[in-house]
Structure formats: structure tokens, C-alpha cells
């Protein structure tokens, strides 16, 4: 390791930033020029150009290509029709991927939202609320890879000698046999989900806690005076009042869960029956070199978010109408 090994990276950074500033200045000049001639369409075009070019070249066109590729063979040379799709729904390994993904996208959003909601209600108005919130929110700042390493040490198993993983040590303390957790299918799937839930609960807590502050205290007070029990208040007053926030949290976690790659890659590499769509897509395309199957997995992933896209766009249009 020597210093020159590192300086060339900063050289690249400097060149990149200078080039970027030059592009901004050029765009600014163009926008000024168009402004002077009072052509707002041209000004809009200049302002939108970088983003639109990036999105077309980097997202829209590749997405279309991926769709096309899913009908081609692994090396992309031969049209195979629906062969990749029939592989995805008949091959036992691929089926396992689909089943696992289904479990993930049901369990993780449900539990993250539920735990976040309960925790937000528990700490609402409590002394030290800030600290409580910060402790659970902290994992949001940790990468999925960092979180995976943290939890891999919790699940760590040693065949002989002292256990170094906390979970197995707890088993030893209560007199049970330690378990090689990450190799035990299908239970290892749930242990991987725990990592994502651990991260997402903080998100759910913060958003739902903010929503709770918006529930008028008079309503809660009125219900209490009418003799409603805490659980009745929770189900009949609190939950309906923050329903839209709950839906938003669940949907956001759902999308994050669907795209999940890092935790599976870093914890099991998809082995021992823990593979999911987003990880298998990468594995097929970049490790096994089968672009056709990789593209197919990506398309299946995309198909699962389409309902969310439709729901979100409708929601936004409705809100815009209401705002008018």
C-alpha cells in the first residue's frame, strides 16, 4: 500500500468534478440563451435534459432490453420464447426462489409495520421518547452488508468449544444444544428476515410516530371518558386515524423487501435454500453468466411491483384533484 496508489483516485475525482461543473455551466448558458428569446419550452428542455437523458439511457431503455432478453437464451443469441419463464416456474431451485420471495414480501412488511406501530404507541409521550426512537432508528444508518455482518456474528455457530454467537450461547445457558442456524432450511429464511425487520422497524417507528402526533388528543380523550379500554382505543381510534401512514410504511417496506439483494448475498450467498428473486437475478446474470434467466428473474421482480406503481399513481392523481 503506497500513497500514489491512492492519489490517482483523487485525481479522477477532481477531473470528474471539473467536468461536471463545466456541464452545469454549459447548461446554464443554454438556459439563459433560451430565456432571452422567451421560449419556456426550450428552457424546460434544458432543465430537464440531463435527468431525462440519464433516465432514458440508464433506466427506461435497459428495462425494455431486459424484457426482450428474457425471451432469449443464456448468451443472448437465440430466441427461446417462454423457455426461461417455464424454467422459473418448474425448476425446483427457481421455485424455491419464488416461494422464499413470497414469504419475504408477506412477512417482512407485516412484522416491520406491526412492531414499528406497537413500539411507536408504547413510546408515545413517554419520558425519553427521543432516546427510545434513536436506538431503534439507528440501524437505518447501517448498510445491509454491515447489518448482515452484525447478525452473522449473532447467529455464529461453532461445532466444538465455546459458542461465540449470542443466540447459541443463550441456548447453551438454558441447557439446549447449539444450532448451525444459517444452514437449517427453511428456518434460516426467517433468520435472514430478522435482519431486514431489524432495519425497517426504525423507519416504521419514525413515520408512524410522527403520524400519531397528528391524531387529535380530544378524540382519544373522548373515547377514554366513554370507558374504552386501551386496546379498544388502539384498534378503533388510533389505527383508523393513521391508516394512510400505515399503508405507506407497509408499501415502502414491501418494495425494499422485494429488491433485497445484500442480506442474502452477505449471509448465505443464496445457499441452503435461502435464495430470493433479486439475488437470484444477480447470481444468474453475473455469476453463472445466464443473461436470459437473469433477465427473466428481473422481469418477474418488476411484475410484482406493477400493482404498487398503479396504486401510487392513482393515489397521487387523487391527491392532486383534491388539492385543486
Amino acid at each position: 500500500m503506497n500513497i500514489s496508489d491512492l492519489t490517482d483516485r483523487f485525481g479522477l475525482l477532481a477531473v470528474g468534478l471539473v467536468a461536471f461543473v463545466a456541464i452545469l455551466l454549459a447548461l446554464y448558458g443554454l438556459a439563459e440563451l433560451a430565456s432571452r428569446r422567451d421560449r419556456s419550452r426550450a428552457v424546460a428542455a434544458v432543465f430537464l435534459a440531463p435527468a431525462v437523458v440519464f433516465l432514458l439511457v440508464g433506466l427506461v431503455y435497459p428495462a425494455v432490453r431486459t424484457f426482450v432478453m428474457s425471451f432469449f437464451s443464456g448468451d443472448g443469441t437465440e430466441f427461446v420464447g417462454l423457455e426461461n419463464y417455464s424454467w422459473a416456474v418448474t425448476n425446483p431451485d427457481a421455485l424455491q426462489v419464488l416461494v422464499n420471495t413470497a414469504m419475504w414480501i408477506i412477512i417482512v412488511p407485516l412484522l416491520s409495520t406491526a412492531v414499528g406501530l406497537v413500539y411507536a404507541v408504547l413510546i408515545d409521550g413517554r419520558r425519553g421518547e427521543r432516546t427510545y426512537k434513536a436506538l431503534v432508528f439507528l440501524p437505518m444508518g447501517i448498510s445491509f452488508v454491515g447489518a448482515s455482518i452484525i447478525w452473522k456474528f449473532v447467529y455464529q455457530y461453532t461445532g466444538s468449544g465455546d459458542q461465540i454467537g449470542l443466540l447459541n450461547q443463550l441456548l447453551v445457558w438454558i441447557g439446549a444444544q447449539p444450532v448451525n442456524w444459517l444452514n437449517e432450511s427453511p428456518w434460516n429464511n426467517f433468520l435472514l428476515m430478522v435482519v431486514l425487520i431489524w432495519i425497517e422497524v426504525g423507519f416504521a417507528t419514525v413515520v408512524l410516530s410522527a403520524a400519531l402526533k397528528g391524531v387529535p388528543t380530544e378524540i382519544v380523550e373522548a373515547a377514554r371518558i366513554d370507558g374504552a379500554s386501551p386496546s379498544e382505543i388502539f384498534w378503533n381510534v388510533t389505527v383508523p386515524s393513521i391508516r394512510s401512514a400505515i399503508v405507506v410504511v407497509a408499501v415502502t417496506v414491501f418494495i425494499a423487501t422485494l429488491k433485497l439483494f445484500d442480506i442474502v448475498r452477505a449471509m448465505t450467498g443464496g445457499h441452503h435454500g435461502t435464495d430470493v428473486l433479486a439475488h437470484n437475478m444477480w447470481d444468474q446474470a453475473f455469476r453463472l453468466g445466464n443473461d436470459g434467466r437473469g433477465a427473466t428473474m428481473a422481469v418477474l421482480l418488476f411484475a410484482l411491483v406493477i400493482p404498487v406503481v398503479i396504486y401510487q399513481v392513482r393515489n397521487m392523481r387523487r391527491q392532486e384533484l383534491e388539492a385543486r
Partner: protein
Amino acid sequence: MTVPIGTDIPDPAAEAQPVARIGESRGERLRRVLSSRVASIAALVIAVLWTIPTAGLFISSFRPEDDIRDSGWWTMFTNPTFTLDTYNYVLYSDSQGGGLIRNLINTVVITIPGVVVPVAFAAMAAYALSWIDFKGRNFLYIAIFALQVVPLQMALIPLLSFFSQGLHVGSVTIMPAWELDGVNTIVQVWIAHSIFGLPLAIFLLHNFMRELPGDVMEAARIDGASHSQIFRKVVLPLVTPALASIAIFQFLWVWNDFLVGRTFGGGEATRPLTAVLGDMAGTWGFGWTRLPAAAFVAIVVPLVVFLLLQRYFVRGLLAGSVKG
């Protein structure tokens, strides 16, 4: 629904403790205090459960490697051993699993443009979408809004081949291959992050910019200011807090990213730290005892940024999720 945006933890009733209510019988009071106790314990249990895994890894990172291999981090309390050797090794050693300082610098070099470029381009696009009148504005906004949810997995394979083989339609070459190698591979990661960060950044900034008072813009227009002047002198200063929120979002995403860095980052020498760590954790091979220290090198920067700037992060979170 009204959610107090901008205050991270608005807790007017934070210090409220159970007080005796009028007309409350002794039994009722006892039950209320008891349920408050149970709630306290439950909140405390969740907070502790959420903190222990990270604390364990943090403690491990300062333990000698032999100790990590032989015993759990909790033995540190009865048999304290402490060393910085592992940090030294993972950062600077020329041997296997060392020299991560290089990848840490890659991460820095990737992150700066990976945040600045998409935020700048998104601000321009968001301005055009909220304050310049042109045909097709609504359609364009909805399209970008929908792109937010498209899994980036849909773009990976074609985007990588775009860099390595260029862009051809039939036999016509539109863009030749980029043929980046060595440190220059990082350019690919910049571009990929800029693309993938755009939809969310545009959506969030559009939300903020649309809320700006129209008469301020109108006044500036009447004074003869062009769009680019209004953008620079009126809008940007007003949305600085929003820019900060989005920059933190993007910073955390880029710094903590594994998938993009691993796919577009070239060989191990040019990959960002998280990508290298992810592979190290995945294989769990030789040198796993150095993982706690290596993980903390990667975790500490975003964690500090996250803790210091949490207020801005939460604001972005609420604006993005509760409104959407």
C-alpha cells in the same frame, strides 16, 4: 392527514406521566399504572434487543483475533482484552484481507459525485416540472414518479453491457464501448448511482418546490428575471433544507450500497468498501475474525452523519413517504 414535517421528534406530551384522573377509582388507577409499567418494560426490551447486536460487533472489533475465535464478546466484561491491531491490519496491511483504506477511498471518491450529480440534475428537473409551463409536463412527472418503483435490477444487465460494448442498433454504432479500466472504472459507478438516484430525488424536490409561494416567482418574473435566474437566486436558497435532506438520503444510499458498486465497480481494487465487505462476509473464509473491525470502518462514517443530521433525514423520510 397532517403530519408535522420538519420537526424530527415533536413530543409536546413527552414528559406527561400518569396522573390521577377525576372520578377514577383506586382499582382503575392501579390498572392504569400497571399497564404503563408493562408498556415501559416492553419498550425497554425492544430498545435493548435492537441495540445489543451492534454493541456486540463494536466490542468484538477491539478484541484480539484469537479471542474472537475462541469466545463471545460478552466475556470481555469478565476478561477485558483490547487491541487496535485488527483495525490497523484491515486498513493498511498488504496481506490478504487488508488494505481496505484503498476501498474506503474508493467509497469516498464514488460517493461525492454519486450525491452531487443526481441532486443537482434532480433540482433542475424538479424546477422545470413545478414552475415552467410546457406541454406534457404532467405526463413526464407521472412517468418519473412511476420510475421510482422500478427495481434497478431491471437495468443492470443492459447498463453494464452499455458500458462494456457500447450501444448499437443493428449494425449501426450509436455509442462505442467505454473501455474503462483500472481506477477509471469508478466513472461507471458514478453514472449508475446518478441514474438510480434521480427518480426519488426529483419526486421529493418536486414536492418541496411546488409548495413554494407562486407570487414570489411571479414577482421575480415581472422584475424581468429569467427562469435560470429564478432557479438560482430564488428557488435554490428556499429549498436548501430539502436539498440537505435529499443529499443525506443519497449519501447513505451510495455509501451503503453493495449491488451497484459490486456490479459496476470493476476489480476488487476499484470497488467500494461495502462491496468488498459483502463478498468477505459472503464467503466467511480465512480472516473472518477481522470482519468486525472491517465492518466498523465502513459503518462508522454513515452512522455519525446519520446521528448528526437525523433531523434532515427524517424530514425527507416524512415528505417522501407520508405525502406519497
